[in-house]
């Protein structure tokens, strides 16, 4: 089981702030493809890879990163701190 966490407009459009899933995906991009097939909300949210960022176990990473060791994967728009 992996925890998926969503922030900002991604959380709003998917309609939840987190969920636990089982997946056969081995990378972030595979996971995204799997989610997109699940529901139109995911395919809309994840349609533009340039519009969001991803973190594995609270660390920023790339879309081709392995999720084998992932306990927590977060999706969010570019950060706007400060």
């Amino acid at each position, binding site marked *: 089981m992996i925890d998926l*966490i969503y*922030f*900002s*407009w991604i959380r709003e459009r998917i309609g939840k702030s987190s969920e636990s899933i089982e997946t056969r995906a081995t990378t972030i991009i595979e996971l995204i493809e799997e989610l997109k097939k699940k529901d139109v909300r995911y395919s809309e949210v994840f349609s533009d890879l340039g519009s969001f960022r991803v*973190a594995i176990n*609270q*660390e*920023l990473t790339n879309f081709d990163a392995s999720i084998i060791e992932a306990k927590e994967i*977060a999706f*969010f*728009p*570019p*950060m*706007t*701190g*400060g």
Partner: protein
Amino acid sequence: MHISVQSEFFDFSKEVENFSSKLDNIGALVTFTGIVRGQKSKNLDYMLIEHYPGMTETQIKLIVEETFKRWKICDALVIHRYGKLEPGEPIMMVATAAQHRKEAFEAAEYLMDYLKSRAPFWKKEVLNGEGNWVGAASGDEAALSRW
């Protein structure tokens, strides 16, 4: 190193006072305070700041540690709020203390550039019940390349 991620209001001048009173033999103190722009019920009713508990603290700590590695500074402070903020309220602040002004200024700007694009906060502006997520400015990511 002093880092606080909090929903509570903070008094900027008291925080600076606190921070600087503990320091010895410094020559330069730089502070930056980010404030919610706009006037209530004209530009903005309020701002909502969301963050990623856990990752926020870790990321800020990494950014501050990198700042200490890159510049000869004596101490640094970061306070960042989340939750509901009214126009005119402080959002966040950084303070840097060093022997010389160049280091203090650069360290503060470096902290700001990285907090802006690498600390997991997201801002929503609410006016007349309508919320708008603030997008990252195109220059924000580019600002990192100067360091």
